[in-house]
Each structure stands twice: as structure tokens, then as C-alpha cells.
């Protein structure tokens, strides 16, 4: 592999993506969604504060103290739940589109054969594509990070602490790992399928299964999700009692867990929600204690990432893959 060749291919891939209408449309869509999700979170929080103030006023008018009520607490990183969920859904589509356009352009213009007739190895070609899109995804996620910091600290007048900024950085880094899994998947599909649109449709089907269907089945099978507010809450049971009851249903829980763990989305979500403190039990905790709990999901995410990059290199080195054209 020649590093200069890889760099040139990476630069070309970066520039090509920025000229692609499909990608730019999706990018605009993602930024709008990030904005919408932040706005919805802000209004949701405002509604909670209003409700709290109304309850206090009502209690005071009845001559009672409002001390018994917990004041809603504002945690900037908890505002990012919608943003992360949109990265799970639309971010993954962006990964698929990037993988698709990085191969579709070469296949559609029949430049793939021309490039490979030059002294450029297949590994350099795919390495350049991966590097270019890594830089592109870092740029996108960096912009999203800046947008979040500006929107929350600039408009909401809430300053981020250093620890929170670092957690945000980690959240975006995990997002990169997650998006690259879809990029590699789509690259492989585009290389494998003779018809490029079929590759895109199959990519969407896999996306639907991994991002929406499998986690949905896992959530639906969760006994605590069967009753609004939680089954165990409705039965007034504490954590110890819950664990005691659930020991009799280990097989069911194991199957449910296997199903959820087969989806990279679930690992990404669990890890990011814990790191950003979106899941309340991790809110305000230091990174060491969060990672003590979440190292499994971290390893899974890294595993999916390395596996997908390795597959992209391995299969693209296969002559049959690169010679198929539209």
C-alpha cells in the first residue's frame, strides 16, 4: 500500500462526496433533525419547569409547602437523546449513502477498471476510500458537536464543563465507529451487486433490520415495557425483588439479550446513553465507573468496527468483487 496514493484517493473521495446532491440532501436533513431534537428537548424541559411552577403555586395557595416536590434538574448532555437517536437512524443512512457513492461513482463511470489498470493496489483503493470517508465523518460529527455546544451554551446560556465536553467528544467518537460499520457494509454491497440500486435497497433492508426491527423486538419483549411506567413499578417491587423474580425467567431474558446484542445499534445506544448520562443512573458519574459497566458494549462496538473494516479490505481484494460493474 502506498500512503501517497491512499491520501490522493481519500482527498478525491472527500471532494466527490461534497459535490453529491444525495449526500448533501441527507446531511442537510440530519442537521435539521439535530436542531429539531434539541428544540424539542428544550421545550420538553420548559414544559416540566412550568408544570413544577404551577404545582408549587397550587400547593402554596393551599397553604402547603412546595418543598416535597423535586425541581426538574437541567443537564445539557441529557438534551441529546433525540440527537443520538437521529444519528442511529439518519446517521446510519448517511453511512450507507457514503459507501454507495464511493463505489457507484467508479462503477457508473467505468473508472474502476481504469484505476486498477494503473499501479494502484486494490488495498490502496479501498484504504483511500475508508480514509476519505473517515475524514468526512469526522468533519460532519465535528460540525454537529460545535452546533450542539453553540445551541446549548449559546442559546440556552448553559456552559459545558470540561468533563461534559469530553463526554460529548466520546459520544461523537462512538458515533463515528457506528457510522463506519454502515459505510463498510454499503461499500461491500455496492462492490458485490451488479446492479447498484439493488445494493442500495439491500442496504436499506439491512439497515431496517439492524436499526429498527431487532431493537424494536428486544424492547417489545422487555417485560418492564409492557405497562406504561414499568411492570415492576406498577407492582411496587424494588430492584432486589425484581432480580429475584427474574431468575426464574433466565432463558427468556437470555434470548432477548442475544437478539439485542446482535444489533450494533443497541451497543452504540447503550454506550452513548451511558457516557452522556442520558440514562439517568449514569448521569453525573465519572467515566471510569461508566466504563466499568459499559466495557462490554464498548468492545462489541469496536469489534463491529474492526470486523467491518477488515471485511471491506478482505473482500475488496477479491477480483470478482471489483470487476462487477453496472
Amino acid at each position, binding site marked *: 500500500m502506498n500512503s501517497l496514493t491512499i491520501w490522493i484517493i481519500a482527498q478525491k473521495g472527500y471532494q466527490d462526496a461534497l459535490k453529491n*446532491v*444525495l449526500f448533501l*440532501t*441527507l446531511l442537510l*436533513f440530519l442537521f435539521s*433533525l439535530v436542531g*429539531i*431534537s434539541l428544540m*424539542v428537548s428544550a*421545550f*420538553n424541559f*420548559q*414544559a416540566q419547569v*412550568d*408544570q413544577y411552577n404551577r404545582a408549587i403555586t397550587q400547593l402554596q395557595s393551599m397553604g402547603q409547602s412546595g418543598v416535597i416536590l423535586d425541581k426538574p434538574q437541567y443537564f445539557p448532555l441529557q438534551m441529546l437523546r*433525540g440527537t443520538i*437517536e*437521529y444519528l442511529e*437512524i*439518519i446517521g446510519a*443512512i448517511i453511512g450507507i*449513502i457514503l459507501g454507495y457513492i464511493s463505489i*457507484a461513482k467508479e462503477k*457508473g463511470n467505468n473508472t474502476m477498471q481504469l484505476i486498477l489498470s494503473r499501479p494502484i493496489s486494490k488495498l490502496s483503493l479501498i484504504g483511500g476510500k475508508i480514509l476519505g470517508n473517515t475524514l468526512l465523518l469526522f468533519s460532519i460529527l465535528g460540525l454537529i458537536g460545535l452546533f450542539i455546544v453553540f445551541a446549548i451554551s449559546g442559546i440556552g446560556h448553559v456552559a459545558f464543563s470540561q468533563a461534559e465536553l469530553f463526554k460529548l467528544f466520546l459520544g461523537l467518537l462512538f458515533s463515528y465507529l457506528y457510522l463506519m460499520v454502515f459505510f463498510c457494509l454499503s461499500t461491500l454491497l455496492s462492490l458485490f451487486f451488479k446492479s*447498484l*440500486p*439493488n445494493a*442500495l*435497497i*439491500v442496504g*436499506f*433492508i439491512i439497515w*431496517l*433490520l439492524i436499526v429498527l*426491527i431487532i*431493537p*424494536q*423486538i428486544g*424492547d*417489545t*419483549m422487555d*417485560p418492564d*415495557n*409492557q*405497562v*406504561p411506567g414499568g*411492570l*415492576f413499578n*406498577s*407492582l*411496587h*417491587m424494588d430492584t432486589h*425483588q425484581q432480580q*429475584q*423474580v*427474574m431468575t*426464574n*425467567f433466565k432463558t*427468556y431474558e437470555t434470548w432477548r439479550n442475544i437478539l439485542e446484542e446482535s444489533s450494533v445499534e443497541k451497543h452504540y445506544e447503550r454506550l452513548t446513553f451511558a457516557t452522556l448520562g442520558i440514562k439517568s443512573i449514569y448521569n453525573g458519574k465519572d467515566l471510569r465507573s461508566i466504563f466499568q459497566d459499559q466495557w462490554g458494549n464498548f468492545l462489541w462496538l469496536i469489534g463491529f468496527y474492526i470486523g467491518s473494516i477488515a471485511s471491506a479490505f478482505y473482500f475488496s481484494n477479491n477480483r470478482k468483487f471489483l470487476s462487477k460493474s*453496472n
Partner: protein
Amino acid sequence: MFEQILIVAANEIRVLMREKTFLLLLSVFLAMTLFSVLIGWSTKTTVLGIYNASLILLKQSGVTHLPSNPFIMIPALALFRNMIIYVFLIGALTSVVIGHSSFIRERKSRVVQLLFTKPISKTCFIAGKIVGILAALLLIIFAVFFISLLSSFFIPGQLLTQQEIIRLSLFYLLSLIYMLIFAMIGLLFAIVLPTESLALLAPIIIWVAVTFIFPELTTGQNPVALLNPTNITQTAPQGAFFTLMHSVLTPFSIEQHYTGLAQPLLETQKQFTSLSIAEIIAQNSGLGISLFVYLILAIALSLYTFYHYAVTRDKMYE
């Protein structure tokens, strides 16, 4: 004229059945229909087991006031509640692909340019396409309905009553209308947009907006929370912003109209079990009418764009 329409429609079905991507999507949809009953049944059985085990534990720990069973008298149709989600996820995507491929195929192969040199009118051609799409979706819905009936008999081992079969049929009729709207959106963009991938992506963006963004803006719930059947009940918005969004966006939120009607039909909650079919239709007629209006609008837009589609100036590239 009718003969020509039927020829185009029959050809549409024939070609569709040879498309591997469509067959893959169809397989996923049919498999998930089967799984939805299996998942519903196993979850219900397990949760009832958990409830009984919890009662024993609570009694042992001296609790005298035992909570009532939250799952008592669960209607048989509630087992199908996941189907609402699978229709607006897999069903809608399948429909988009059907609508998209029905016209993009002709553009890509330049058949559409050749076709109009023959004695076939634009009206016959587009009507044949729409009839073909409708027939394909009808076949899918029949297959899904059949699987639902069989699985409800074999998995929980219970026969649905006549009333329940009528409710299930109405649910699938509603799903057909919903899916047809997305098929027409797929067709519309396949006519209008210059590239195949953009024509596929545009309806998917609309689908994402309808499925995730509108419900989030009108209810304040997080996007993925709406995929949990216990969460998709329309929650009353709180605060001025959500009230405004609710009044502005709800008329356009097709997914909410669909779930608003589908939930009482499938008796997903106890309060729906006391309602008769006539009462459900009477209470939710507005939602049904609006879905129908959206369908007519999507068909009209597809027809309009097709009549203005300049066959000789199509510069489709990919």
C-alpha cells in the same frame, strides 16, 4: 382500453415477482408477520408468569394489598399489536420500493420512450401501473392476513371470533390504504427525479419524517420511543410549543392517523375493547377520511407529473 390497462398491470406483477430485492423485502415482511404473533404470545405468557411469581414473592414478604393483574382480559387481537409497527416500517418501505421500481425500471431501460411509439395512451399506461401496484399490494396484504389467521390459530391455539376476524380485516384494509400512499409517493418521485438513487431516497426521507419527526414534534416523545407498542398511544402534548405543533402538524402526520385508527381496531388497550366496530369508525372517521384524502392526493400528483413527463427529454443517468 381496459384490456391495455390489464396487460400493463399483469406485466407489472410479473416483473415484480422476478425482482430479487422486492422478494427479499416481501420475505422480511411475511416473516415479521409470523414473528409478531410469536413475539406477542411469548411476551404475554412470560409477563403473566412474572406477575404470578411476583404475587407469590409479595405474599411471602407480608404484603396484604396485592396489585391487580395488569394483563387481565387481554383481547386476542392485542397479539397483533406489533403489526402496526411492522406495517409502518417494513410495509411502507416495501411499498416505496414497489412504486419506485414500477416506473424507474421503464425509464432506465428506455422502454418508456419506445412504448409511446406504439398505440398505447399515457392514460392506459399509468392506469395499468397503478392497478398493477394496487394488485401487488393486495396480494401482499392477503398473504399477511392469511399468515396472521394461521399463526393466531397455531401459536396461541385459539380461534378468532367472527367479530375479531372482521376487526383484523379492517385493520389490513387500513394498512393497504397506508401502504398504497407510500407506493404512490415512490411512483411520484420515480417520475420526477433525475437519478434512480435520489428517486429512492426522497420517499424514504418523507417516510422518516412522517414516522419519526412529526410524532416527535407533536407529542414530545423521542423518535425511537414510538417503536414501542406501549408508547405509541397518542399522548397529550404539554406546553405551548407542543400544543402549537400538535395543531399544525397533526393533519399531516399520516402515521398518527394510521395508528389512531389501527389501535382501537386491534384492541391494543383495555379501553378499546368495549368499542364496537361501528363506534370505532364513527369516532375515528376523520382519521380514515384524511388517509383516503392523502391517497387520492398522492395518486393525483403521480398522474399530474406523469402527464407532464417529457419522454424524449428524460436525461436519466446512473
